[in-house]
């Protein structure tokens, strides 16, 4: 079975939601669209307070090439542009839209479906850009940028990342089971862009049903050869570098980007969005969100309009089973802890998890006993115990020598540490300090 070196095996916690079909959640009265839901420059609003908007209408233009457009996920009226809380805990500019409850769509969606094979690669990428697609696995990197590597790149692998190695998350799994056609079409479009005849979908072997379903769908899919690659279940199998290594045997050099190894990797929901954008004229206005965690009363998979507040989603699902102590956006290994539920669903919100006191609590840190477990599991071959120490001492020189920039913040080290050291916290904090120091130096 294909895999990578290192990694950990956290408890999956997927049973609660894995076999629950995706439920479509009706949008709330008010939706919030942060101008920055992606890596890169914030989007620039192209509507004003009082404007009427249709479902799928563009409300903000990309603020540059590395940026993404925004679309209204409902029809209604623009209430204004205000500072609201972003899931990352900061106040940011958001477009507020009042839902008229009619879901009147933009006229384009009733146009006949496009045949992507008649489009040039450039046209496909432009459609992706227009649709505001970003990496929906969590990173939020604009997809059209990913699909536009420099001309010297030779891409020979397009890989759909179906690893979904984070505990609790089952949204990608459900898409594979329920929406395999869209997924395959999306992949075929990416293959078309790079003129490839073979495409890959990598799935962890703890999802035999998804492997089965995708194999069947791929066999019946006409016009493109799509290979399903089962991978060993291990975290962080879905990390780009580790996935590329497992599927192709290639290892990215330090600091290298996937295209430099001839690879383009995309997340499941992202690829499905590509199909919807190119074939069905639909921009990104919804995403699949897993609701889970031991404090959630009814864990399930929702199809949610972008802009829907988390508090509304949780309330609609039935609230809590026990008092929540910690909220996460995304999975427990790399997800973001929330300070408020009054934040909107953004394009990269893969899950909302509510943890009870017992699972949110950490044991106290003890001194490092040099057991080396962190070093065995680090997928980037780093020495997390030394990084931890150097970070606490603000020893920037040592941190560079220990290659802190290689750290993908996967959390494997802190997960495994018997002394309960919070290496990743130290690494993240000191990375910020390093950035600041560099900025000052320039």
């Amino acid at each position: 079975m294909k895999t990578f070196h290192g990694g950990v095996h956290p408890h999956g916690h997927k049973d609660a939601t894995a076999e629950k079909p995706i439920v479509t959640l009706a949008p709330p009265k008010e939706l919030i669209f942060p101008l920055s839901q992606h890596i890169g420059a914030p989007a620039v609003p192209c509507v004003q307070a009082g404007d009427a908007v249709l479902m799928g209408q563009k409300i903000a233009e990309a603020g540059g090439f590395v940026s993404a457009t925004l679309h209204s996920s409902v029809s209604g009226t623009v209430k204004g542009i205000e500072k609201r809380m972003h899931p990352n805990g900061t106040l940011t500019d958001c477009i507020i839209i009042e839902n008229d409850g009619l879901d009147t769509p933009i006229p384009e969606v009733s146009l006949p479906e496009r045949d992507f094979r008649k489009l040039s690669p450039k046209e496909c990428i432009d459609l992706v850009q227009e649709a505001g697609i970003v990496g929906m696995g969590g990173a939020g990197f604009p997809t059209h940028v990913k699909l536009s590597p420099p001309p010297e790149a030779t891409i020979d692998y397009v890989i759909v990342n179906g690893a979904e190695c984070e505990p609790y998350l089952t949204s990608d799994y459900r898409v594979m089971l329920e929406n395999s056609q869209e997924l395959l079409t999306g992949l075929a479009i990416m293959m078309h862009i790079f003129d490839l005849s073979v495409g890959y979908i990598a799935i962890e072997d703890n999802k035999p049903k998804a492997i089965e379903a995708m194999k069947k769908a791929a066999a019946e899919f006409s016009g493109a050869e799509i290979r399903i690659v089962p991978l060993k279940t291990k975290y962080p199998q879905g990390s780009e570098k580790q996935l590329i290594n497992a599927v192709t045997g290639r290892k990215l050099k330090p600091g290298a980007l996937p295209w430099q190894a001839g690879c383009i990797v995309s997340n499941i929901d992202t690829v499905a969005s590509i199909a919807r954008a190119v074939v069905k004229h639909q921009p990104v206005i919804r995403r699949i969100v897993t609701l889970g965690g031991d404090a959630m009363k009814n864990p399930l998979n929702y199809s949610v309009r972008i802009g829907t507040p988390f508090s509304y989603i949780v309330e609609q699902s039935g609230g809590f089973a026990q008092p929540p102590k910690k909220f996460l956006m995304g999975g427990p290994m790399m997800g973001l802890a929330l300070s408020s539920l009054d934040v909107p669903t953004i394009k990269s919100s893969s899950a909302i998890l509510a943890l009870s006191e017992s699972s949110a609590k950490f044991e106290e840190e003890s001194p490092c006993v040099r057991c080396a477990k962190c070093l065995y599991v680090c997928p980037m071959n780093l020495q997390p115990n030394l990084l931890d120490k150097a970070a606490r001492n603000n020893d920037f020189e040592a941190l560079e020598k220990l290659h802190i920039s290689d750290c993908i913040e996967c959390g494997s080290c802190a997960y495994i540490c018997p002394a309960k050291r919070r290496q990743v916290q130290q690494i993240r904090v000191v990375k910020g300090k390093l950035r600041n120091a560099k900025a000052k130096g320039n």
Partner: protein
Amino acid sequence: MEEKWIVSHPPHVATKDNLSRIMLHVVIALLPAVLAGCLVFGLRALIVTLTCVISCVVFEALWQKLLKKPVTVSDLSAVVTGILLACNLPVSIPLWMAVIGSFFAIIVVKQFFGGLGHNFMNPALGARAFLLASWALAMTSFPAPGTSLPLFGSVDAVSAATPLALYAENAEQLPTYLNLFLGNIGGCIGETSALAILIGGIYLLITKVIRLRVPVCFLATVALGTWIFGGHEGWFTGDWLYQLLSGGLMLGAFFMATDYTTTPFTPKGQIYFGIGCGIITVLIRLWGGYPEGTSYAILLMNIVTPLIDKATAPRRYGTKFGKEVA
């Protein structure tokens, strides 16, 4: 915000494994060796072990109380040190000496250097070396198996030669492999029975507390070295199996050369460490003044551990030759 939620950096989950669980595994793994000690040498072995364990725990707690630090004896590391120290003592040792040894292990070797995770020498071995230097006679009198000994009182010197001493003298009558394997021989409390130590070692391997690298490299080096150079009839005639089963080698290889804090943490470093321990053990056993060299070998390698770690830092991901791409 109505309620106080925990906002922290990821990851938000962790293994259940913690230090006290790991130490508990080590304690469990040491029980067969202690039991074997009791069977071979009688109940006094248990008394010595308890003395060491209790004094180690008490010294650690007192020290931490005195310095107003949080008392961490519940991590069980002092218990492990106590058992290991006892395993490295002859059963006839006066109990007050065991207490002093415990003091040295916990206070001098461990706490003076910053406590758990910061000591550079194995506390039990450091204490053994200290006791050996101070009371050589008491530390080298090994009662023969089955001698009846007073439980608490002092023991008259009733010394039996250890298997290694016998081998070094090229004695006529050597213990059989079976007796060596079972531990029916003279020696320290926890080191005589290879069988009991192997059971504990396998338990540690299964529970993933230790990895095979160090014990295998250590034992293989000693076997090779003593086979080549250890014979009385010239090269390649050494009785390597006898050497493996004698003295503190098994105990050292599985329980002391695998100590986290005082041995290298890089995989390559662990290999060098094991080989280094093996080489020094062979040197001392064959050409040194002592018939036994395991503990000095490990202590010496403890000292160079930081250097080994520096020299064997893992290679950065994506920089191995072979599979990289432009």
